[in-house]
């Protein structure tokens, strides 16, 4: 009796499947629940990886519900890579379809924000430009300049107040969220990713910069999207967050 890895794996991820034959306890008896040690290790270690990756989702749905959710997730979307830092990338779409969670419309976007924070944490390092470098540019030069943005930058747009929801669940005494669309950008001024809400037009501005537009063109896009677009506010934010890493003509 041989046990191949296809058989072993099937029985691991399906708690209702029969345990494979051909395994014993070292004394000639069938292995029985000894096989469940592996089942348990797989389920527990992957659930823990999701708990680490989605602390706010876990808080929002509660620990017991999160375990159920994780148990369904890890069977539908087992990791495709040995890098646990990437595990959970399908969580937003999963939450949009997982019946018990579907009612909570903002969960997928909160999960997107948590993924963005995790990606930012592991992103490549980059040396930011100094505020003086930016100030040295004439308005004309700035308008014509394009910029390279830090690899740790992430942008998450949502019709839900995802930044407020996120902050309310991680910061003691944070204001409770009010219904509003929120665009969040995540950057890593030092070693910790920091999410910040963007003023209106900010997301369009950054999106344009990311696609290589000059400041002038990005400003046009932002002003099209929002009459109230305030360039100095967004520029200050990008500098403070050390998001601008190279500025050129």
């Amino acid at each position, binding site marked *: 009796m041989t046990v191949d890895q296809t058989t072993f794996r099937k029985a691991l991820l399906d708690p209702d499947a029969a345990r494979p034959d051909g395994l014993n306890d070292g004394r000639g008896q069938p292995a029985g*629940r000894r096989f469940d040690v592996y089942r348990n290790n797989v389920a527990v270690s992957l659930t823990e990886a999701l708990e680490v990756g989605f602390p706010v989702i876990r808080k929002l749905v509660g620990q017991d519900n999160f375990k159920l959710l994780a148990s369904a997730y890890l069977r539908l979307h087992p990791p495709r890579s040995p890098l*646990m830092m990437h595990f959970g990338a399908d969580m937003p779409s999963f939450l949009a379809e997982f019946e018990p969670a579907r009612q909570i419309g903002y969960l997928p976007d909160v999960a997107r924000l948590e993924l963005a924070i995790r990606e930012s944490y592991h992103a490549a390092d980059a040396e930011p430009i100094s505020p003086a470098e930016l100030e040295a540019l004439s308005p004309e030069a700035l308008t014509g300049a394009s910029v390279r943005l830090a690899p740790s930058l992430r942008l998450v747009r949502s019709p839900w107040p995802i930044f407020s929801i996120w902050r309310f669940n991680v910061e003691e005494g944070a204001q409770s969220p009010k219904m509003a669309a929120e665009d969040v950008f995540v950057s890593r001024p030092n070693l910790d990713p920091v999410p910040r809400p963007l003023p209106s037009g900010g997301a369009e501005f950054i999106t344009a910069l990311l696609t290589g537009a000059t400041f002038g063109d990005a400003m046009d896009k932002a002003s099209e999207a929002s009459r109230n677009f305030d360039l100095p506010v967004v520029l200050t934010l990008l500098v403070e967050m050390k998001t601008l890493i190279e500025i050129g003509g």
Partner: protein
Amino acid sequence: MLDATTHRFACLPDAPGVGYKPQHFTEIVNDAGPVAWLEIHAENYMGDGGRPIAQLRHLSERFAFSVHGVGLSIGGEGPLDSEHLARLRHLVGWLDPASFSEHLAWSTHDSAFLNDLLPLPYTEASLARVAEHVDEVQEVVGRRMLLENPSSYLTFEESTLAETEFLREIAKRTGCGLLLDVNNVFVSATNLGTDPVSYIDAFPLELVGEIHLGGHDDDEDDHGAPLLIDNHGREVADPVWSLFEYTISQSGPKPSLIEWDNDVPEWPVLKAEASRAASVLETANA
């Protein structure tokens, strides 16, 4: 097989090391106690940058490092993941650790990574496959590796070789060294009703480049027989310390690691475990 004249041999000090946890960064820098080297799980340091890499760069100026892979699936039936091998090569390349090790286990099948060290039967066929995989790893990563003995909860009826024979033969065919996890020896022997001292006696101690010590949990199987679970979540158990003392008395001092991966304690607790390992190693030196 790798040519013995071209590869770098493991050169961790014959002293205690610990599995590095980021929450201990400041205390390790300020007060490492007897801890002379650190081990990392390779997969946690395969991001592009940020704090994990920054901490590693900083610590690697002061401590010898062991890169311990947990995701390569060397015991897998399928081919090794070439992307993952390339990531290992990159990490080992820039960090230049004193040692690189992986497990006699599998964790990936049909492209799903199961995040556990799963067992394989010990047969001529699996021996040939594992030896091929070890050859490939050593070729790509460019250095000799250590292969670790697993903890077992069950055995395969199809197995025809003892684990110690299997490991000895892999080392012989590939030139790799071995990582002896003494807790795994104790856990497996208890679970399978064999004698841990006989296992150590049969183990090729001259090939051991590193020893692991870790905590386990107690459970029972269907028949009420003890079933120990290797969870690295507590202090090293007393019988494991005894087995470690016996091993060191036979092998002489070896780089010896305290592994504590779950319910990670405060630094002083981990440091105390390392001190206990230090005193065993010193006895062997005396």
